[in-house]
């Protein structure tokens, strides 16, 4: 249903017609053209002094930021080279001491340059707003209307412009603490910022070299990338589908009409969800260590001799199977919660009809339950799949990616995300970490795009007009 705009723009504004930037430039005349250089001029001429001065202040602040020493222009100027001067000790003859001459810091240059670009983007937004606003105010004045005062504008912020008021803080935070870092990390993938060859202070652009290294299966990093990617996909596949099928099975068993204490079983399962994951996973990790509770129990029960242990954490295959099994322990409750609701929605007549046709329980599941579940649960399964590709917690907390072969940076159970973490934090190979991050994004984006496009909520969204 279309929403009616019962409250309109401030009445004076709404009389002047279209007010885009191009209209303003075309119809504005010399004063508006001048206000492209001196922001706020249009507003001041129309009598909106506070607004005009605010725009002017933004412009002055911006220019000042760009031209001061070590300001925006400096960082942009340094961006192509990322700095060349190393910190050096220089002999000072007058004082008779060595002095440190601080050189360039590439990491800082890159960060500040990206921040400067963000400042420029914000400035352009304000600049555009100022030209439009000046044009509007002048047009109102020319047509003899009452130019809205600052008070009117503030009132408008609580009414038709409420989205500007409400969106500003969250968007600013998102821009500063999510978007700038993301752009920064993506740029890092094209540098040699790494502890390898000592490029932690000064580094350079290297183009696509890092991407080439990842895909070169003869290099150490390329070989590891292949095996990590393969394990990531195998893991995501098993973790998702085993969870789904076993979880569905469990939900159906609990759902059976003759099962008693349904609520009890469900709440026991949901305890896993309620307890913070890092707590339960750290407990489980300690239970499965070589001298942990599980091996102790098996020894005490006589299944293992004294000193014999099952290599849960030290053998690659054991560790991988353990991860998938523990992930069942973590994930089945979620599936049960989801599936229970859906099972209750399957029309009873369908089962009735199947029974009359002589279908047994297995056939009912195969031809009634399963098709319905797959139809409803496909988006959920794909979300789970992408979630598992990104499943940092369980790997990091349970095996830490281990066991790791000597000389490798990736362990045998590392996913792309945990490897990314190890490369950036432990090994300080930031450039490689960034490359893997971008690659993970590509894998996720492909999966997500397909899902999102076909999901009901996206299509419904089109109806919002």
């Amino acid at each position, binding site marked *: 249903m279309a929403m009616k705009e019962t409250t309109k723009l401030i009445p004076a504004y709404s009389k002047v017609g279209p007010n885009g930037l191009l209209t303003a430039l075309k119809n504005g005349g010399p004063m508006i053209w001048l206000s492209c250089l001196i922001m706020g001029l249009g507003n001041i001429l129309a009598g909106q002094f506070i607004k005009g001065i605010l725009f002017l202040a933004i412009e002055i602040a911006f220019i000042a930021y760009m031209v001061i020493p070590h300001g925006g222009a400096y960082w942009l100027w340094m961006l192509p080279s990322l700095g060349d001067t190393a910190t050096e000790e220089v002999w000072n003859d007058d004082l008779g001491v060595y002095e440190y001459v601080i050189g360039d810091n590439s990491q800082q240059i890159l960060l500040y340059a990206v921040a400067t670009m963000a400042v420029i983007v914000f400035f352009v937004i304000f600049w555009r707003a100022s030209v439009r606003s000046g044009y509007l105010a002048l047009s109102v004045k020319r047509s003899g209307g009452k130019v809205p005062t600052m008070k009117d504008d503030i009132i408008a912020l609580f009414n038709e412009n409420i989205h500007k008021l409400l969106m500003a803080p969250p968007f600013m935070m998102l821009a500063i*603490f999510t978007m*700038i870092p993301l752009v920064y990390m993506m740029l890092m993938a094209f540098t040699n910022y790494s502890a390898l060859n000592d490029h932690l202070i000064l580094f350079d652009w290297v183009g696509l070299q890092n991407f080439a290294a990842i895909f070169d299966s003869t290099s150490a990093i390329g070989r590891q990338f292949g095996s990590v990617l393969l394990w990531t996909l195998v893991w995501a596949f098993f973790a998702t589908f085993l969870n789904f099928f076993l979880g569905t099975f469990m939900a159906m068993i609990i759902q059976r009409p003759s099962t008693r204490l349904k609520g009890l079983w469900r709440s026991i399962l949901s305890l896993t969800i309620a307890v913070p*994951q890092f707590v339960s996973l*750290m407990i489980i990790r300690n239970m499965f260590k070589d001298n942990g509770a599980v091996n102790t129990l098996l020894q005490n029960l006589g299944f293992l001799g004294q000193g014999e242990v099952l290599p849960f954490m030290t053998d690659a295959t054991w560790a991988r199977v353990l991860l998938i099994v523990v992930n069942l322990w973590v994930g089945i409750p979620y599936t049960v919660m989801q599936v229970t609701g859906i099972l209750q929605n399957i029309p009873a007549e369908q089962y009735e009809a199947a029974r009359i046709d002589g279908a047994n329980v297995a056939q009912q599941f195969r031809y009634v339950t399963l098709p319905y579940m797959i139809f409803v649960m496909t988006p959920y399964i794909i979300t789970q799949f992408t979630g598992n590709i990104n499943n940092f917690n369980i790997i990091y907390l349970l095996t830490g990616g281990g066991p790791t072969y000597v000389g490798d940076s990736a362990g045998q159970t590392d996913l792309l995300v945990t490897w990314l973490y190890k490369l950036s934090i432990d090994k300080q190979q930031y450039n490689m970490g960034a490359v893997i991050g971008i690659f993970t994004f590509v894998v996720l984006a492909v999966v997500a795009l397909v899902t999102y496009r076909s999901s009901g909520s996206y299509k419904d969204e089109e109806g919002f007009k």
Partner: protein
Amino acid sequence: MAKKPASVKTTKMVTDIVVHLFLVIVAIVWLIPFVWIIAHSFRGESTGMFCSTFFPKEYTLDNYIGLFTDIKTMNFPRMFMNTFIISIFCCLISTFFVLAVSYSLSRVKWTMRRPYMNMAMIINLFPGFMSMVAIYFLLKAMGLTEGDRIPIALVICFSAGAGAGFHVMKGYMDTIPKALDEAAYIDGATRWQTFTKITLPLCKPMIVYQVITSFMGPWMDFIFAKIIVRAEAQYYTVSIGLWKMLEMEYIGGWFTRFCAGAVLVAIPISILFMITQRFYQEAMSGAVKG
């Protein structure tokens, strides 16, 4: 239904027994880690990780007492307070952000609405850890990673992304009939008034859900916290502290206290989680009834 022959009845009974036995085994498997950790948090014989039996033989309260009194190496009460304070700020900021964004996206028509939603979707696809290093550098450049400004850095870290996590709340607001808003406009209400007087009260169950979820964030995360706090022990959050207790140098003396700490954190968080589930279900049953 017609009376079934005896053999069918027997089969049914056997199935029932098998099913219930299976469920009992499942329940044991799911409960064992929790029972185990509670038992070991009261263990009396040794404080290290290794225990020669699955369940301890002697029980004591010393681990809990030690956790709160032996504050020289690991100041657990302080960690608890740190996390609590950070969580409160985090929860206020995130909830406001989520509500503001959701309302703007659900109720107001503006040019950048769709681009914003697409942007949020793309941001959510990047692995969060990827930009972690950059966020640290950024916070460092702002001088927020030293001394008593660390908690501010943590609050920013945990709540800055809230503006991209609007999906559940927006979906909920979409179910509130637009006719309610229109009726309010006709009565002369401003957008702000419809937001605070109509939308927010109707979103109550979802707001409770949001508040508790964002409150729990800092209790669960240890990765961001570890990178930002580094070695500054007085600003540790609970999760870093618990993580530390299991590191090589501490595990010998701190394992049972770790168990005690884990139990103490898990209890309030589980209770909060159960509450969120109740409100979530209430929310899912519809915003406006009848």
